């Protein structure tokens, strides 16, 4: 069975850039959760998640972002979500999570 999500990390100075592409749903999220939480726990810098190639996100994905945010907040760091598609940003607005993450164009 093929995965639908690609995940890449790149350190740059005071933050880690994470590039995700494809569909982040209940199926692809297990793998994503493991990678993102590992990074959130093992570093103490901001996470900048680049989402211009993220095509689909569901509540499972939202939950994982929240879980990662809890982890980085313990170290007073933040998660930046960059270039969300409109249809995905809408889900952050519906759930109120647009006030919890730093959403950037």
């Amino acid at each position: 069975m093929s995965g639908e999500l690609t995940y890449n990390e790149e350190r740059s100075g005071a933050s880690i850039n994470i590039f995700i592409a494809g569909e982040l749903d209940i199926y692809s999220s297990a793998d994503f959760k493991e990678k993102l939480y590992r990074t959130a726990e093992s570093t103490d810098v901001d996470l900048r998640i680049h989402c211009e190639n993220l095509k689909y996100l569901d509540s499972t994905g939202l939950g994982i972002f929240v879980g990662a945010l809890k982890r980085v907040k313990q170290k007073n760091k933040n998660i930046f979500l960059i270039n969300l598609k409109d249809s995905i940003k809408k889900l952050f607005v519906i759930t109120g999570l647009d006030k919890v993450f730093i959403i950037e164009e």
Partner: protein
Amino acid sequence: MDNIDVIELSLPLKAEYVSVVRLTASGVSNRMGFDIDSIEDIKVAIAEVCNKLISVGSDNSKRFTVIFQISKDRLNVIFDCADKSLKCIFDGSDNEFGLSIINALMDEVELCSDNYILSISKVIEGKS
């Protein structure tokens, strides 16, 4: 009276096949003439119901059926899952995100039903 066409998709209750439901839902709503934003809304809402069925489903519910009832200006989507324990899937749920999303994106939501029929509906604007 409108004619109603019915399309049924029956599949294993497994996370790996929610993407198949999403594509079928896109196809149906695109064919009905929903605009791109509404097609995305329908896809997302249907997938959230599937996600929830998968996460609460027991071994009694190995399969489920998504029933698309297509009329000129309205899509009803019914979820049929043999497991009676799924009567009220979002009851006391920790998946608030999923329920908020479904409520925001669909026009009618009935996910807690005495007759075990879960359904969500969306109307095509200006086409009734």
